[in-house]
């Protein structure tokens, strides 16, 4: 059906090609936006339960429409520009924050063959795209011409650079194991007959933990949300933003969070592979994805990881700035450097089976 649609659009020449590309982008972008809206609702609900509160419960059944009400409120509010802000960069900054976080979604494989861009250097491209998002934050901080925003931006820049290194090493170990940077091949390398023990989380356990913690730090979320630190610098880099400009920052941050959850799934938890792989062989319609694997597993695992974000936020107090830097440079980087060598040895001596 998809091929037929592609053919019918390409028949119109260049216009059809553009339409096809736009369609592909929308197929990814629209669900991401809706997922972000529902994730915000879920976050407020979960944190509410953890605080023994109700959470949003007024708008729609169970408060389900709360997120959309918030969106409409933000969209209709006035965007106030500080009088001595750099006008051009002030408007550009939210867009720069948004574009890389959406572009990275095109690389995520949801199922075998279900990926928008099956790139050979996928892993590297992901790292590059996620590191571009920090420009939005820095520019927002600088162009607002406010001390609080500036401090938030400086903190965000230092933190993102620091945690990119352990994150990169974690990706290197995955790359060593697989021998490829292609995300689909990375998932297929985790297939096997030992169920969930075949996934990379087991041989690369420290890397897996460090990757996820670095992901939390990279997206500036609690307990590493020094860039926003309400108690010290009001709201950090977006203190001068209001209305839809603020909404775009919000969207980019949450899209990044969900992306990190999906990536942790794909890189370390076997993507769409089933945790029961190889243990059950039966053919039953509708439910055999449970042991054969399918996109459902990707979403279940990613949902679990995104839940960890909320759990962390409700559980841990915010780190002190020097503690964040110490954790990144003095704890994570040495551990990852050692484990890259360990991973190479595991691979070289054939202690880990790669692929089915």
């Amino acid at each position, binding site marked *: 059906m998809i091929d037929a649609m592609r053919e019918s659009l390409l028949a119109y020449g260049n216009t059809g090609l553009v339409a096809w590309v736009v369609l592909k982008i929308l197929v990814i972008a629209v669900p991401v936006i809706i997922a972000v809206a529902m994730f915000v609702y879920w976050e407020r609900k979960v944190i509410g339960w953890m605080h023994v509160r109700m959470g949003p419960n007024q708008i729609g059944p169970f408060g389900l429409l709360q997120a959309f009400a918030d969106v409409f409120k933000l969209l209709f509010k006035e965007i106030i520009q500080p009088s001595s802000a750099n006008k051009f*960069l002030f408007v550009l900054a939210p867009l720069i924050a948004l574009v890389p976080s959406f572009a990275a979604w095109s690389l995520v494989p949801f199922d075998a063959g279900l990926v928008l861009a099956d790139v050979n250097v996928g892993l590297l491209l992901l790292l590059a795209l996620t590191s571009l998002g920090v420009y939005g934050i820095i520019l927002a901080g600088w162009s607002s011409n406010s001390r609080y925003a*500036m401090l938030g931006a400086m903190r965000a820049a230092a933190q993102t650079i620091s945690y990119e290194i352990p994150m990169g090493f974690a990706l290197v170990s995955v790359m060593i194991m697989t021998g490829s940077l292609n995300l689909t091949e990375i998932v297929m390398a985790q297939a096997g007959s030992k169920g969930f023990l075949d996934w990379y989380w087991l041989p690369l356990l420290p890397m897996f933990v460090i990757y996820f913690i670095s992901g939390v730090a990279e997206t500036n979320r609690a307990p590493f949300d020094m860039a926003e630190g309400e108690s010290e610098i009001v709201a950090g880099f977006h203190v001068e933003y209001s209305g839809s400009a603020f909404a775009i920052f919000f969207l980019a941050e949450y899209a990044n969070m969900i992306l990190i959850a999906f990536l942790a799934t794909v890189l370390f938890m076997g993507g769409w592979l089933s945790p029961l792989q190889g243990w059950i062989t039966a053919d039953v319609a509708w439910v055999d994805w449970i042991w054969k694997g399918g996109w459902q597993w990707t979403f279940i695992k990613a949902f679990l990881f995104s839940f960890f974000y909320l759990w962390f936020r409700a559980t841990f107090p915010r780190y002190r700035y020097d503690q964040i830097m110490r954790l990144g440079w003095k704890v994570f980087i040495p551990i990852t450097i050692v484990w890259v060598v360990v991973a190479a040895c595991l691979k070289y001596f054939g202690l880990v089976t790669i692929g089915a």
Partner: protein
Amino acid sequence: MTFELLCFYFFGTVAVVAALSVISVKNSVVAALCLVLTFFSMACVWLLAQAEFLGVALALVYVGAVMVLFLFVVMMLDVDFAPLREGFVRFLPVGVLVAVVMLVEMLMMIGVRTLQTPPSEDPAMLAGMSNLEWLGYTLFRDFILPFEIAALILTVGLIAAVTLNERKRSHTKLQNPSRQVMVKREDRVRLVKMAAEKKGEAAP
């Protein structure tokens, strides 16, 4: 005109314009951002030339890390750059001369003749590998010694930079986070037992 050629002209124009504005823009932060744009469009040009790894590595290393730190420094510096740029027009001939000499040197190194001959077949394609695999095999098998030497030189440079910058400061207060974490209640709080005061006694 093919789509690729159109993209090449677009990215090439953006790169040239951005590179020119790096040296002509007044605001130093905007100049740094123009440099970012130059790097980014060059990365796109390399992607078009099917050097995927180089293109993405350029975006990752220079745009994603080096320029962020550079912006960091430029934003923190409280320097008025206007006087530094005053001699821009006066020194322009010298700059152009240096640029021309560099161009001539580059042409001598690469050779004018290679510019006229059509490019040879993509070696990665000939070997039947992806660009990335071919680069990896070439770098780590055929050129392992130069690669290692380059890595060693960079490490030495890194250590030298750190040593040059490290100086003893006398009046700094340092925290030891591992000791802070290990602290126990007994180290900080002492519970003192006191006899209860009795009724009727005059308070001191």
